[in-house]
């Protein structure tokens, strides 16, 4: 089957691979190659070494930033896993017309500019923002809380909100693929709603949730705009570190080396998620 498909369109396959290599892999590789070049007296020396990586691993502030970022991405993924699953489940249980409307509403933010969404979140979290107004109105606090902005929590909240669709949509797709007869069969065999959820719905939709968590982790760990705009000094992340090497320090080789590290993490997460989201029964 696979063989036939490949041999059937040899020219097409070659063209596709050529496009991928030429426009994606080559630029990416040539950029990442900088990571292996040392900088001496503010000039790049074209003799590949591992100096940059040695520097990164021996620098404790880089290490702390790296770990903080991984933890941040993990927290956001776990939080969104729960929130996203609940949201997707809620959407899935609506009547079809509602369901489609809700999915579209959820997908619309994906078409909007990322930076606008972050500024919007900044407005929500600020001292005169929506969240503070709400807290004041409900009497939770007496005066506006400034602790909502320019710290790591602000980054957590912002990333959670902005990345939520990436969690909800794959779960929605997975839930949508569960045949209604299978749920009827569960009820028919005597399962209560909770048993049906625990033994049928959850395991069948988990692959989608894992894909969502993977998206969330990879996007959160590499992001620099959200930490930059709402994170303040406390919210200094690995993404900002990379950005600073390119934009401020003009140390491209170090920036590239940091990027390589980030990419290795991303690839590792993706490969783990791929295994988890392709269980044996999906043949």
């Amino acid at each position, binding site marked *: 089957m696979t063989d036939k498909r490949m041999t059937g369109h040899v020219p097409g396959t070659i063209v596709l691979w050529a496009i991928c290599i030429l426009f994606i892999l080559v630029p990416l590789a040539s950029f990442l190659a900088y990571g292996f070049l040392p900088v001496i007296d503010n000039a790049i020396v074209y003799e590949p070494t591992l100096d940059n990586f040695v520097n990164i691993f021996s620098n404790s502030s880089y290490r702390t930033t790296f770990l903080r970022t991984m933890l941040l991405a993990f927290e956001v993924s776990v939080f969104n896993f729960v929130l996203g699953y609940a949201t997707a489940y809620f959407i899935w249980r609506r009547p079809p017309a509602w369901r489609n409307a809700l999915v579209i509403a959820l997908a619309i933010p994906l078409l909007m500019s990322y930076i606008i969404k972050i500024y919007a979140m900044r407005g929500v979290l600020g001292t005169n923002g929506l969240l503070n107004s709400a807290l004041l109105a409900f009497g939770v606090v007496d005066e506006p809380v400034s602790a909502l902005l320019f710290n790591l929590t602000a980054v957590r909240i912002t990333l959670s909100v902005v990345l939520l669709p990436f969690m909800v949509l794959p779960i929605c797709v997975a839930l949508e693929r569960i*045949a209604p*007869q*299978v749920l*009827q*069969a*569960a*009820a*028919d*065999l*005597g*399962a*209560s709603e909770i*048993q049906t959820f625990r*033994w*049928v719905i959850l*395991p*069948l939709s988990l692959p989608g949730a894992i894909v969502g968590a993977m998206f969330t982790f990879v996007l959160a760990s590499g992001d620099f705009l959200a930490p930059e705009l709402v994170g303040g000094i406390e919210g200094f992340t690995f993404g900002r570190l990379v950005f600073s090497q390119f934009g401020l320090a003009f140390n491209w080789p170090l920036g590239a080396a940091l990027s390589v590290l980030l990419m290795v993490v991303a690839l590792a997460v993706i490969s783990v998620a791929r295994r988890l989201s392709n*269980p*044996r*029964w*999906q*043949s």
Partner: protein
Amino acid sequence: MDAPDTDSRHEVAGDRTPLLRIRGLGVRFQDFEAIRPLDLDVLNGEFLTVLGPSGSGKTTLLRTIAGFQQPTAGRIEFDGRDIADVPINRRPFNTVFQDYALFPHLTVRENVAFGLRVRGIARATRDARVEDALGIVELEDLGDRYPAQLSGGQQQRTALARAMICEPRLILLDEPLAALDATLRRQMQKFLKVVQRRSGITFVFVTHDQSEAITVSDRICVMRSGSIEQIGTPRDLYYRPRSRFVAAFFGASNILEPCRIESTGEDTTMVSTPFGTIRVDGPPPRVREGLALAVRPEALVPAAGDACNRIECEVVSVSFVGSETITELEHSRTRHVLTMKTRSDPSTRQPVVGSRLEVGFDAAACALVKGARE
């Protein structure tokens, strides 16, 4: 009113009591009546087949019994109690779905165990009963496979084992054999019948295949546009159809119409048809208007000088289809058409197209039925 079909029921019923008593059950989708209010008894331990053409409401009836569909009228009593308020997961019925609806993420063994697991049956008991059930459906060796790795017949048997293991009082099967090829299908028909006899569980089985219905059923309930057309044993429906529809469904394709009763005796009726006067054996019909006469193609015999009903015909076509030969005949006077099915026999000559042929049939081999206009 209480007994919609008394005369055919007592044949099988004997001392059996109804397990399900369905009264005035109707299902309406907006302005479409999928089931017109009907009465039906399902007897304890019987294999009842619901037979009917596509869209006649078979699935709807089954889903209503299972509880997936709310009836819009009437009631269903199980063991004498109305089950309207009993939710699906509390009804002692199990369904074998048309597309099996196995749990894709569970192995055959786990699928079969599901019903016991939700009841919180201890692991050891559960495992033993699962092995038993797998043994009955001959799937012991495939217990660790996932549904996606099974053939259609194996999936079907898994679904059956999964339903049976709960020891339900009633198993509902919606065209479970529709997706199988002819050989496997026949094999599964026998198998279902054996399993049903051995377990003593009542089966309500939906199909639109009359030969399948005849093979497996104790009783057949023929449905047509949401109503029950006739209920009875396979022999009943085969030899004593009560309407033109049932007759045609069971292959009595020669319909002699219009009919007029000339005279009735105790056990014979003389009927005037376009083919002349025909003698029909059996009890006299309850109505005298709008009748038709149904004759099975295999009841016709060529050149039968001694048959009590004889018709002079002309041979229109002869087709040899293996064990049988099908001959199309035209009535010499009225040009009405008849079909005759005879056993192929190498030693006798086939009728010659265009020749005259007198065909005869027995007075017991035909049935007076309700005609097309009712």
